[in-house]
């Protein structure tokens, strides 16, 4: 008869959830960050987590499930301490991403069985996934640990990296904030930095990415200025 309590999600999480809702004019908008918040507590989106979001946002569990099952960043099985995402989209794959993924699969597997997509190594340290484009094609092949970039990888460096992660080390990413763990990263994605605001403040763009800009600055190049007032006609909007 007592109301169903989400014991997993304590008062702190509830407060955070309310803060998320307060950020948006419509409470439903807070669903995406709230699912990250749920992942920061449990390491994945459980049925309890779905119920938690539904209760907080006054949605049905079906509506929350619809969103949680659509996005790949919401994991439906418990994740390890770190999430290793290997880009296997065209460019990275061609540059060696496939080889990295194959190597990590073998190394993280146990009993002669390679690790599959979104599976966790037996020691619970690393969850492996093959990811769609990570938006760093100029630095490929890339992989991410807890969404922090490790650029210009090859099977050996990747293997080394994962070995360090499993040994409890937290190697510094090529750029961006220092490595934490998956749950901590999820909390940041939910928008709670817990005193780490400076770490994630950036800039985290790589030198390679900005090279064109640098060259243009050096040589004084600039794009022609758009003449005022004569914008090309915008195609009429439907409706």
């Amino acid at each position, binding site marked *: *008869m*007592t*109301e169903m309590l989400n014991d997993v999600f304590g008062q702190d999480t509830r407060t955070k959830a309310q803060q998320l809702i307060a950020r948006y004019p419509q409470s439903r908008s807070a669903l995406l960050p709230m699912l990250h918040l749920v992942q920061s507590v449990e390491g994945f989106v459980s*049925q309890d987590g*779905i*119920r938690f979001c539904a209760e907080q946002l006054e*949605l*049905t*569990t*079906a*509506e*929350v*499930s*619809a969103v949680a*099952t*659509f*996005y*790949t960043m919401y994991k439906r099985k418990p994740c390890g301490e770190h999430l290793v995402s290997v880009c296997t989209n065209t460019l990275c794959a061609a540059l060696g991403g496939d080889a990295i993924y194959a190597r990590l699969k073998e190394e993280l597997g146990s009993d002669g069985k390679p690790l599959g997509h979104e599976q966790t190594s037996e020691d619970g340290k690393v969850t492996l996934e093959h990811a769609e484009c990570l938006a760093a094609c100029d630095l490929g092949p890339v992989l991410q640990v807890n969404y922090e970039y490790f650029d210009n990888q090859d099977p050996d460096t990747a293997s080394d990296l994962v070995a360090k992660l499993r040994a409890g080390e937290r190697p510094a990413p090529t750029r961006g904030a220092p490595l934490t763990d998956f749950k901590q990263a999820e909390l940041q994605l939910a928008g709670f930095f817990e005193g780490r605001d400076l770490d994630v403040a950036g800039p985290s763009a790589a030198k390679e990415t900005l090279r064109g800009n640098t060259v243009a600055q050096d040589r004084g190049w600039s794009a022609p200025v758009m003449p005022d007032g004569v914008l090309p006609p915008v*195609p*009429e909007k*439907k*409706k």
Partner: protein
Amino acid sequence: MTLAADKNTDIVVPDGHVKLTIDGAEVVAPKGELLIRTAERLGTVIPRFCDHPLLEPAGACRQCLVEVEMGGRPMPKPQASCTLTVADGMVVKTQLTSPVADKAQAGVMELLLINHPLDCPICDKGGECPLQNQALKHGRTDSRFTETKRTFPKPIAVSSQVLLDRERCVLCQRCTRFSEQIAGDPFIELLERGSQQQIGTAQDQPFQSYFSGNTIQICPVGALTSAAYRFRSRPFDLVSTPSVCEHCAGGCATRTDWRRGKITRRLAAEDPQVNEEWICDKGRFAFTYTTEPDRLLRPRVRDAKTGELRDASWTEALRVAAEGLTKAKEAGGVGVLPGGRLTVEDAYAYSKFARVALGTNDIDYRNRPSSAEELAFLGSTVSGTNPEHGVTYGDIEKAPAVLLIALEPEEEAPGVFLRLRKGNRKHGNRVFHMGQWTTPAVVKTNGTLIPCLPGEEADMLGRLPSEVDELLRRPDAVILLGERAAEITGLFSTARELAAQTGAKLAWIPRRAGELAAIEAGALPTMLPGGRPVTDSVARAEVELAWGLETGTLPTAEGRDLAGILGAVANGRLAGLVIGSVDVHDLPNPELAERALDSGVFVVSLDLRESSVTRRADVVLPVAAISEKAGTYINWEGRRRPFPVVITGTNRLPDCRVLDTLAVEMDADLFTQTPAAAMADLGRLGHHTGNRIPAPSVDAGRPNRPGQRHAVLATWHQLIDHGSMQDGEPHLAGTARPAVARLSVDTAKAFGVADAALITVGTDRGSVTLLAEFADLPEGVVWLPSNSTPATVRTSLGAGHGALVTVTTAANGAAS
């Protein structure tokens, strides 16, 4: 819309309209109209799956692609005509004139069919399937897809009633949009992504909606099927007969499909003024009660020697009944209880039978808690209600404010609930629920709860929040009263006063389908047909003239009401009873009713199925079920809802025919041999223009206050419960809302049951034990569903809305 007779003539474009060209023809269309509808009005049907006129546009299926040109510039790609609104100067080419549109449609169709199984021969939808039809009309003749089709394990049950074959689904989202927009129960959603995208429910919450059946009907493929109809027959095998739902006073238009003398399914029919295209699950699935094994097929007579009921011929049964009733009439009189589920023809036959054959006004159709105040209200306000002058579904939708008193729309009048929700979504009307807790209906109509103690409603009307009072003064505001109003002293009187003060329209929405018909037919102790007061000599003379009776034949005094009749029978003042389909457990005092029936009076029962009444009767006369007779219901608007015989050739007799023959045996003529004859006879009476029964004037009663030892009971029926008209349909029963007792946390603490899972609500008569759930009820109030447990509120507690009850922790943890 006007069509150009000659292209050169200028078409006048009225205000708020635009002119466009579709397939070379100039058309004028109102601004904001969707292109697909404009084309349809022109006679061009663009194929579509996701588009539904009552749902918001989605553009999900992409089947309705057309070529569009705006301001001389062709749009770069074919556009979905179901999301595109008309614009001035638009030039549209549909598949009829544009090879591009035609190819686009054929392409979309080919993609939709890639994963669609070719199981049309065994699919329920085969033969009435939009996908099948449109694939034949607009699709390619062959598929270029040679790979293996994606399959899913089939089917999955999204509820006990609705089954989903995911591989047949084309992801049009009609079902999810219906459940979100129309019903307000978004328990089905699109899950997963890419090729795995599928409709589904959350793991912990099935598709529990009172309107889930509509998704089956609007599914454009065979993805959603009902457990009750799945694989039962093929659409082209069925005879479809228009019919009217018999379950509530809504009068929804339905279509009954049957074959081989058996109903296979019931669908919603279109009636924009009443139910639009929707019906509730009870109306859709609860039709098996007429074929239950306890259905009465032959008359029965109590054997003089053995004292047991035995089968008899009609001739014998009618003779015995007539003799017994004649004797009883002389020995003190006979009371008539027709029940609240009759057509106007049948109710009229009861009414005339009582007056002509039995010479009495002791007739009351109200087989539920009722009051004298209600009787006056029905005579003064409800009788003669019609959609021209009274409140209609349309009025509810358009009203700026609706105040519901003692009415739980989703449970008691689902059609009204859908209109309230639509009104709020489309027109932003304000809905105020005077009730005890924030029910799902309050949430889904975006309504405001005006909480009060059960029984305090009348008093509360005198101190409405100023906002409500103000809104009710706006033109076209509506006040709706429910069946429960009869249990609240003074509510009818105060509601009338409030309506008069504010100018709001007042309507009464009972639960049963036959109530308005029975009032119109005069199946009440104070009223002759048409609301004519029995005490009014002019009105009596009118009726006597029409019925061909000698002046002064009709009884002049008001008769006894339900409680009066049962009381008089119990203490021997009445010697006989004629009872229609009445369930003893619906009556306010089932104990008294059973005592009356057991008192040795002569009882003639006209019923469909065996019941506690037929078991005690001296003569049992079987009558036709709704599907076996023609008739007319009158819904709460006062709208006549005639329907024809569905299953022909059953030889079952409607009540009016049975009573007519019985009257002949008693040497009286009713002229109600057939429903048509009964209707014509009623029609000869004409409208009543004379005096009416005076309006009630009863002061608001003092409600029971909760105390240290007693809580106050609030109760009403859930839509899907243990009602006998839902028997034989386990899949429907599986979608019922769980039966729980509701009370507030504070109340639970006050009665020391805060930690108990099961609580027992009791009176000196008996008790009901249920799982407890917290809700925002007023302090000291406990809510129970009236008939969702084996122990019912009326029979087990002998109590009703507003009664005092005890609340304790369940003794041994077993639910009753």
